[in-house]
């Protein structure tokens, strides 16, 4: 299975308001794609379409087709894809390890090849296995969130502005963590929604730049920088700024230079 995700001519409208229009995205195994654009351009809507939340849980007019792992949305099972939300979705009454284990308690019998403890170790929380969310910082909570989204070994990871609420230094260390998770094969393929150009350039192989009202993809740009894109000293590697500026130009002017 090489192609993980295919969106063809996807359009979504809430009542009469067209949110996204004629979106075409493909994502291959091993690839990370980022959706970037102004608020209200429908990037989170697209992510929810892939997750099946729209139009199953949130009513909307939907056209086009979505296939994940060659299957329709209704045929997806736990473990096919998982989603990382913004801060605040882990459960207050469960400690870190039991938060990570939660998806396995649902209907994932025998699905995971990873243990919750191992994922906590990989995400740098080995010493906080039995800490409760109130004892963890914002960044640590998002590490728990990531670990819990990876416990079922999803073939596609959806990330909805996962680090938007973190301070910029914490954010950068989270980027390094996600980079490591990609490198070590914990994250197999991912679709990332972000506001941050840097985040897109650090993590993505392809950056889809969107414009709003209605949301369309104005440009899809390959990022061919080598990985990891933050070096051992915590600095962006050479050429990083140029790529970021190209993206910035497209966002500002609606097209390539």
């Amino acid at each position: 299975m090489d192609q993980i995700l295919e969106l063809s001519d996807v359009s979504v409208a809430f009542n009469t308001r067209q949110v996204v229009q004629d979106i075409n995205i493909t994502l291959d195994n091993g690839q990370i794609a980022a959706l970037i654009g102004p608020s209200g351009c429908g990037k989170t809507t697209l992510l929810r379409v892939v997750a099946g939340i729209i139009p199953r849980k949130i009513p909307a007019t939907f056209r086009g087709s979505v296939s994940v792992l060659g299957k329709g949305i209704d045929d997806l099972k736990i473990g096919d894809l998982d989603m990382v939300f913004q801060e605040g979705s882990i459960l207050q009454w469960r400690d870190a390890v039991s938060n990570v284990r939660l998806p396995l308690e649902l209907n994932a019998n025998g699905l995971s090849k990873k243990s919750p403890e191992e994922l906590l170790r990989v995400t740098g929380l080995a010493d906080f296995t039995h800490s409760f969310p109130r004892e963890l910082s914002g960044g640590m909570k998002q590490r728990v969130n990531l670990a819990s989204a990876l416990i079922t070994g999803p073939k596609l990871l959806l990330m909805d502005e996962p680090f938007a609420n973190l301070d910029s230094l914490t954010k950068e260390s989270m980027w390094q963590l996600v980079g490591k998770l990609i490198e070590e094969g914990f994250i197999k393929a991912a679709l990332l929604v972000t506001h941050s150009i840097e985040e897109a350039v650090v993590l993505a192989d392809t950056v889809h730049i969107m414009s709003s009202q209605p949301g369309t993809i104005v440009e899809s740009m390959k990022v061919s920088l080598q990985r990891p894109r933050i070096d051992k000293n915590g600095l962006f590697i050479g050429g990083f700024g140029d790529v970021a500026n190209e993206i910035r130009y497209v966002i500002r002017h609606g097209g390539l230079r």
Partner: protein
Amino acid sequence: MKKNWIVPLLTFSILIIGFEAGLTIFGISTFIFPKPSLILKSLVENWVWILSNLKITLFEALVGFSLSIILGVGLSLAYLIFPKLEQVIVPVAIAIRNVPFVAIAPILFITLGYGPLPKIIIVMVVSFFPIMVNLAAGFNSISQQQRERFYVWRATKWQLFKKLQLPSSIPYLVTGLEIAVSNIIIAAIVGELLGTTKGLGFVIIMSVSQYKFPLLMAAVLITTIVSIMLTWILNTTTKKIFKRWLVT
């Protein structure tokens, strides 16, 4: 912990001494306000009688409270499972809650007699409502993110309930119970005032009709203390039982 007691204790001591002194100095009649020492004397003299009546009131209050937990939890579960029922249950519940039960009590006594049953019903009418609405608010308190996370995992409705809605609702349930419990003794006594020959309400009626105002105040004192104690007991036990879900 110990320090928390000192200020209230001191406050009440000063209040009691102040009342005693004030009522003595200004020579205020027992019929207007009995002196604390007289109230205490009356309490000691009538202790056995007050206690046996307290037991009856407490029984009515606690049975009514237990039944209203069952009723309140049951109703909120009913319209969680069948959302369409909300539009049936909630308006009816609001109507029942707002019926002046003082006015309908005589009907209850005619149809159900003068035993504990009508008082238990009055207690239920007063206390099921906060339990029901608070628990329902708790079930709805989960964030959209959390709901969507469970959807992505293809969790069943039962799993969503067991793993997310139920634990999230516990702080709300505890609040509902606390609101409810603070009114049960008063509701039972009001029921007794309207028609009975037993219970603290009867003690109050009797002492008024016989102009035994120190006894009246003793009964009021016991009522207040028992009501506070019930709230306190509920508070400490729920904090212990539900500790894990109450921290935020």
